[in-house]
């Protein structure tokens, strides 16, 4: 398991310096680390978070938005009609609830269809794993710089340490 402290440090090492989002239990450890270090700006909805990231990007920051995959549904229009067409990149760190059908009912359809949804709207994505974390972050930095659009790093449960071990 990746320690959330190490994960946040590697994001900072590749230049990310503005963090916002809406919490999820899988992201609890990362958000706790960000809050402890006063790096996190909470949002109330995911569309607000990606729009805040757009503003921060235009003001010189390199933004990250954390969310549960249900939030992808909430912010879809903002991603399509703001971030994508205006070329305002941000890294979406999306927790993969409903992975392989093992979750509460409300997560199952999004859990099954999330990667197809991202493909359909042409948001590049990759799933983080402990074994490939170095390459995953390299891909993140390169895609951000090259494509200048939002991209998603998907996080399954237990890949980065949560609040409770």
């Amino acid at each position, binding site marked *: 398991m990746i320690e959330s402290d190490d994960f946040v440090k590697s994001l900072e090492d590749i230049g990310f310096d503005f963090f916002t989002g809406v919490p999820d239990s899988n992201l609890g450890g990362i958000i706790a680390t960000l809050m402890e270090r006063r790096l996190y700006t909470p949002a109330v909805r995911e569309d*607000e978070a990606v729009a805040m990231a757009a503003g921060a990007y235009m003001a010189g920051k390199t933004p990250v938005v954390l969310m549960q995959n249900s939030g992808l549904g909430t912010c879809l229009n903002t991603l399509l009609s703001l971030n994508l067409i205006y070329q305002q990149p941000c890294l979406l760190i999306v927790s993969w609830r409903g992975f392989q059908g093992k979750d509460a009912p409300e997560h199952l359809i999004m859990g099954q269809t999330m990667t197809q949804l991202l493909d359909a709207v042409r948001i590049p994505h990759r799933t983080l794993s402990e074994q490939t974390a170095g390459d995953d972050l390299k891909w993140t930095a390169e895609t951000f710089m090259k494509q200048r659009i939002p991209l998603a790093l998907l996080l399954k449960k237990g890949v980065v340490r949560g609040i409770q071990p």
Partner: protein
Amino acid sequence: MRPEEGTIQSRARAIGAVLELLTDQPVIICNGFPSREACKQADRPTHFYMIGSMGVAPAIGLGVALSKPAKKVVVLDGDGNVLMGMGTLATVGALKPKNFLHVVLDNEVYGSTGNQPTFSRVVRLEQVAKAAGYVHVERVREREDLVYELKQMLAKDGPSMLLVKVTEQAEDVDRVPLDPREITRRFMKAIE
């Protein structure tokens, strides 16, 4: 003048009055007629014209304001937009960026889609902002009151909301003629 009295002006006239008082402040303008009317009257590289993503103009402004604390960031918004993204009033009120100025042009209708009524006829949006934690809120009608209050708010620490009641009248204006990618590039350079 009490805010419920006095002569109401058109949104385009109110936008003109606001832009006359601004110089090099970053301005985020919501989708629909506000962006189109602002672009036609006084296009500046410091303007960010939002063409889609209804409801998130203050969220974009908040991202700019938090990242550039030395610049006063102005958001030109509409009543339908505020109602759609009302949660952001809480985010602004809680984070309290001093450099955030929210101007709401309230015509009580969805003007770009055929003037269907909004709830701002009965919901006082500046009072919602006040309850959410905005430091200064005012509601005006007359052009001279707008100018007076906006000058005050530009000089004071915020976050502030100036709600301007305007008529339903829309100017005969084209869509914003700029490519969205160009709007981003030019805005970034202008506020560097």
